[in-house]
């Protein structure tokens, strides 16, 4: 792996840091990067990419993606293909109007953009209910509307799995940087663990909470983490609170690997689980 590269807003991504381009498989851009121009003459550098926020450049050769791992941050700007947790604000004839972040313009989620939804079987979501959705498009310019979807329009399936209404459980607020790290930690293969900056809090919780029934988790890039421990029976609430506290304290304290392990055991002891 190449040395980590920190980019500041406006800086260009050096072409030697990009994964080798293949003609049939275009490079996918993650949040924080922007394609400014595509010079037709220069053969070596196909693209000029610039960072739109400060962060650590990360590339994934297997999936041919390049993205910017931003630092802990409270402000979320929707980017296409982000997985987010949105809250239904109200519904109209064709759309659910969702809050992605409080006090910003609502995002639109089609009434029929759910797996297997038809005019008759579509989910009847009420105000305040939560959905796990993907950002379909963010629009351009002032007054542009963000559109969400819970289904892959090509296959008609909820892809990646788990998109759709979230029932029960609890939502915890974390920074957007933490949410990005959690997503990377969950999608990383075991040999990649150092690349996720030693985020072991989730795997540690997973080990410790397996005996009480495990837990379900959905991470939204907008800084929200949904946790459900409904299998845990009587200690469901304690386990959920424990997970939330572990995540929030790891986030706020920027804890190291060993500190995260200590934190998990301390909080589980405090909440009398496991």
């Amino acid at each position, binding site marked *: 792996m190449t040395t980590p590269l920190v980019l500041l807003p406006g800086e260009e991504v050096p072409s030697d840091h990009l994964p080798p381009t293949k003609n049939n498989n275009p490079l996918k851009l993650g949040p924080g990067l922007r394609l400014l121009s595509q010079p037709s003459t220069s053969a070596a550098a196909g693209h000029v990419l610039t960072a739109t926020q400060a962060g650590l450049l990360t590339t994934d050769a297997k999936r041919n993606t390049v993205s910017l791992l931003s630092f802990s941050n409270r402000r979320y700007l929707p980017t296409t293909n982000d997985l987010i947790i949105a*809250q239904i604000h109200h519904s109209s004839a064709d759309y659910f109007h969702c*809050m992605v972040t*409080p*006090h910003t313009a609502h995002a639109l989620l089609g009434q029929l953009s759910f797996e297997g939804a038809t005019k008759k079987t579509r989910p009847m979501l*009420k*105000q*305040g*209910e*939560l959905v796990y959705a993907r950002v379909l498009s963010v629009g351009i310019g002032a007054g542009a509307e963000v559109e969400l979807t819970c289904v892959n329009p090509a296959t008609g399936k909820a892809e990646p799995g788990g998109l759709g209404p*979230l*029932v*029960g*459980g*609890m*939502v915890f607020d974390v920074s957007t940087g933490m949410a990005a790290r959690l997503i990377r930690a969950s999608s990383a293969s075991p040999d990649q663990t150092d690349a996720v900056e030693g985020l072991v809090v989730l795997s540690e919780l997973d080990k410790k909470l397996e005996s009480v029934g495990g837990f379900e988790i959905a991470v939204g890039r907008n800084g929200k983490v*949904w946790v459900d421990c409904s299998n845990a029976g009587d200690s469901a*609430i*304690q386990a*959920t*609170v424990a997970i*939330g*506290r572990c995540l929030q304290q790891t986030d706020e304290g920027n804890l190291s690997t060993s500190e995260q392990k200590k934190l998990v055991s301390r*909080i589980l002891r*405090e*909440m009398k689980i496991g």
Partner: protein
Amino acid sequence: MSKEAPLSVAERDFILDALHQNVRLDGRGLDQFRPLSVSFGNEYGHVKLRLGKTSLVVRISAEVTKPRDDRPFDGLFNIALELSAMGSPAWENGRSNDLEAYVSHILDRVIRHSNALDTESLCIIQGVSCWNIRADVHVLDFDGNLTDAACIGVMAGLQHFRRPDAVVKDGQVVVYGVEERVPVALNITQKPLSTTFHSFDEGKTVILDATRKEEQASEGELVIGINNAGDVCFLSKFAGDPIDALFVVNKSNVAQEKVKEINAMVDKVLQADLARRAKKGMAEEAQAENDREVSPNDPFV
């Protein structure tokens, strides 16, 4: 959009279920405050306060004005609280909201109307001039329980503040600068603080120092303003579910304990700060050298 973003159904249900089992989201006990930190700035009466994630700055200032015609022996004392967009995206600049009016009212009642600051001691010449003490509360971050945080901040500020010395010479008021004469502490008669309780489950579960989310999920609230000696100077139950009268009696004992604890903590910080100032002041006086500006271009350095 000057309203707080509503809680999601999942959050509300979970907070209520958890409180049913006496569990709070941050693992606190029901009668426990969040970690409180109070610190003082360089100038007198400049307080920085953090209560969990709620944070605010209080500035106390003084100026000489004319007393009110109907109260010639009294000085003036005002508390100004304005919620600006700095504190929360839910607030708009220059537009007052319900929370602002509500917190201002409680601060007024708990601190001003309880005569915690002896306004008669602010009089300089009867009917002609007096001190006007003003407390400005700036909210930097809001995560619930603004009332108690602001109350602690203003009281800490009043105790920390030193006004310039003023004397009457031949019918003229002479105000001495802070360097000329040792500034004078305000006359604080008592230290009342507010404690806010939120009730859930038809009054069966009651918590202290609610966070923003807990406040939004709560069914009712009760504010008790009480001082160290246990004198209740303010009691309000503006809205929400009814609560038992016996409960009010019980909770005022809890409130008194908390107020004692907080006042002791503020006292400790205050004494430490004053001791630091006294030491610094003496060290400055003992120094024979004058302060001089050293510029980096100076050839003799």
